[in-house]
């Protein structure tokens, strides 16, 4: 074997740590203990602790694979047209005037992350304000996506550790202090990681404030249907903003609500003032996408489109989606009850008040480390647990672990 020239050109490349969220699963997989629990990444698990592929997804996939007329030609840069139209209707409502007036451009992207990245790159190139305000805390990947796209990231107050709820006044004060035109990231529902959402009244106040300051909303909608169990209810915040005629961006993901995680299915919509602007915006989105990956993957988007356009399959989907959302809500109740039964010190009612896949337990990093070491419970160090990873079987283990952590570690 020839030795080539001595030193590596990669000598100055250091080893990066594992991603803080996805790295939890890496660590979990390495753990040899027979009794371990992965509450890290937000991926739904059944009561048996298994990943779930929705029945309606399996059926749609079978139809597609067995359809011999289907080909694998490149999708357009903006993706599968049918998928784009159906995705816009799903988030904005079938009767949305914005859609009817052709003021919405929707492009298929790689799940939520890809939609956020494409939107951010677009804003960094074409929008006059390059600051984006993100809630404190937010999904760990948000600041990385925006920074690498060329935006500068600031935060607005969101979570109040004292109340384990929304710091609404802090939120209003911080957005009010933002420069006119700044971009504001909003979690459409089921805030990640806290599970704390504004009420409809609070959303209306946020909307008014933002419109008065010309702040540009950028919604991250990763849990439509998963928060309350109703697709329409979970889209209310977005629709409220769209119905005032203003502009906004929306990143949609089908990872959770259709269980399409690994297929990377999502969409970026930009609601514009006019159809003419929407056409030009779309043409510029293509220039962002082409040098990134040319055009998006067909498989997942085809499955989603198949389901959304067929009223029977759509209905089936809503039933399966509600079942997932309901199971999570019941896990919340079970965990809360288990902690009450153990007399665990503290107020744990936030477990049943928070919404969506995650619970922000309020546990600190030391307590989390304790739970991992002693009880083999894997979660992110901010104290976030994925309720989707719990089952009736495993709730007692988790309750024991929390009880021990809170009692022995400060």
């Amino acid at each position, binding site marked *: 074997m020839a030795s080539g020239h001595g030193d590596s050109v990669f000598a100055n490349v250091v080893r990066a740590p594992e*991603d803080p969220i996805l790295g939890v699963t890496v660590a979990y997989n390495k753990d040899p203990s027979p009794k371990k629990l992965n509450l890290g990444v937000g991926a739904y698990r059944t009561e048996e602790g298994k990943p779930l592929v929705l029945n309606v997804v399996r059926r749609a996939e079978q139809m597609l694979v067995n359809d011999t007329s289907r080909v694998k030609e490149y999708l357009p840069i903006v993706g599968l047209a049918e998928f784009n139209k159906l995705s816009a209707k799903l988030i904005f409502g079938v009767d949305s005037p914005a859609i009817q007036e052709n003021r919405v451009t929707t492009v298929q992207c790689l799940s939520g992350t890809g939609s956020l990245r494409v939107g951010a790159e677009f804003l960094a190139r*074409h929008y006059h304000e390059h600051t984006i305000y993100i809630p404190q805390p937010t999904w760990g990947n948000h600041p990385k996506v925006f920074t690498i796209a060329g935006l500068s990231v600031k935060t607005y107050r969101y979570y109040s550790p004292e109340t384990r709820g929304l710091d609404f006044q802090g939120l209003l004060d911080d957005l009010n202090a933002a420069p006119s035109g700044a971009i504001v990231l909003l979690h459409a529902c089921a805030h990640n990681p806290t599970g704390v959402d504004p009420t409809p009244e609070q959303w209306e106040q946020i909307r008014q404030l933002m419109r008065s300051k010309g702040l*540009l909303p950028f919604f991250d909608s990763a849990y439509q249907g998963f928060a309350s169990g109703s697709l329409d209810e979970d889209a209310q915040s977005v629709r409220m903003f769209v119905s005032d005629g203003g502009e906004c961006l929306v990143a949609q993901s089908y990872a959770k609500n259709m269980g399409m995680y690994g297929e990377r299915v999502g969409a970026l919509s930009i609601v514009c003032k006019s159809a003419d602007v929407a056409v030009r915006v779309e043409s510029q989105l293509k220039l962002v996408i082409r040098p990134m990956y040319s055009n998006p993957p067909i498989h997942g988007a085809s499955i989603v489109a198949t389901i959304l356009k067929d009223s029977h399959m759509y209905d089936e989907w809503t039933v399966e989606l509600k079942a997932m959302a309901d199971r999570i809500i019941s896990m919340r109740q079970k965990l809360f009850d288990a902690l009450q039964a153990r007399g665990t010190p503290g107020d744990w009612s936030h477990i049943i008040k928070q919404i969506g896949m995650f619970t922000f337990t309020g546990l600190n990093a030391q307590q989390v480390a304790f739970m991992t070491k002693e009880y083999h419970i894997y979660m992110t160090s901010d104290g976030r647990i994925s309720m989707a990873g719990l089952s009736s079987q495993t709730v007692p283990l988790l309750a024991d672990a929390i009880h021990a952590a809170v009692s022995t570690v400060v």
Partner: protein
Amino acid sequence: MASGMLSLTCPSSSSLSLPHQFKGGAAGKPKLLNQASFFGKRFVNAKSFTRTTMAVALNVSRFESITMAPPDPILGVSEAFRADTNEMKLNLGVGAYRTEDLQPYVLNVVKKAEKLMLERGENKEYLPIEGLASFNKVTAELLLGADNPLILQQRVATVQGLSGTGSLRLAAALIERYFPGAKVLISSPSWGNHKNIFNDARVPWSEYRYYDPSTVGLDFDGMIADIKAAPEGSFVLLHGCAHNPTGIDPTPEQWEIIADVIQEKNHIPFFDVAYQGFASGSLDVDASSVRLFAARGLELLVAQSYSKNLGLYAERIGAINIVCSSADAATRVKSQIKRLARPMYSNPPVHGARIVANVVGDPELFNEWKEEMEVMAGRIKSVRQKLYDSLRAKDKSGKDWSFILRQIGMFSFTGLNKAQSDNMTNKWHVYMTKDGRISLAGLSSAKCEYLADAIFDSYHNVS
């Protein structure tokens, strides 16, 4: 909430974010002046204005000043083709394989793999950031040879990427971060999207001479001179086989000299391998340039695509491979590529990766694939011959069309200029890219005569 007109409640005008640009006009109707930074350079007449209404200001889009981008020079060709209603139309734009009936082709092995996958009822969980492990393993083996010591020594960092484009982009992002200021040398001409990728990744580039129009062949001396002249430690983008758009590849002897020069200048070879198997029909032969460099112990980057050779275009499946001087370096480099993928799309799509892992990883399916590969490459070789024969028969001017036979892979660089290419489209409804490139994968033997007529006319009658 007032409907029909955008209205916002503003508690006081001081909370209006606009600078004081509202001035009352003659009839009490204000004009919006000097709105350059917020709305672009247009005046808007207010229909009505009250202290609490923002109707004027926000009826203008924040994106008003955005201009219409031109269509993609390659992918836009197919759009134009679709819009054409003429029955003689021929799409020789994008490099997507077509059967003799000019139909898209899904390989039999792909159909078999998908059926197997369906039967197994696999889940749709997130892949790791670096992609499907079984895919990464077989793809490195396919590229370098399963028994390559580099693989046994774990010196190859392989990360699943979004086909060729996505894999190139990950590599570009790595270069930008870890080799600041380093240039990428791109052949003149090259695939149109290469420059866009490096521009968006903010990696500087320059060109090296490649295509010689006078010989319709390789400007080898120019290529070597330009690679030598580049600053030490540049990345040299090389097409592993079946150069796109010219179809002109260096000979094995020329590859050795290219490797010598790259080694002398401590440049880093960066291969784009989008046609492995499609050039000669043999997967191993088409990988020989990459293997030649790797065997010299050079560190190198290789972007792979399965769009063409497995017909998986729309599944977006490929990989970026970094061959490093040590297993430790490979581990570190892989970890940093993951850091670049995470804020781009988090983790790659599973479907295409599983198909590849099933086909390439199963000896029976792999052999079947090799056969289908030979059929596809064979069809292209035969239309090359037929096109050449048709042109020879038509053109008695003495013009030498034999370059068509020497060129390799999906494309032929016809040597037609932009005006002539336009004539091909406008008069003959033959769709191709403006650089004179035609995709032979989109040509049937039945259409060779027609195409020969079009080329003959465009070459001789248009300047």
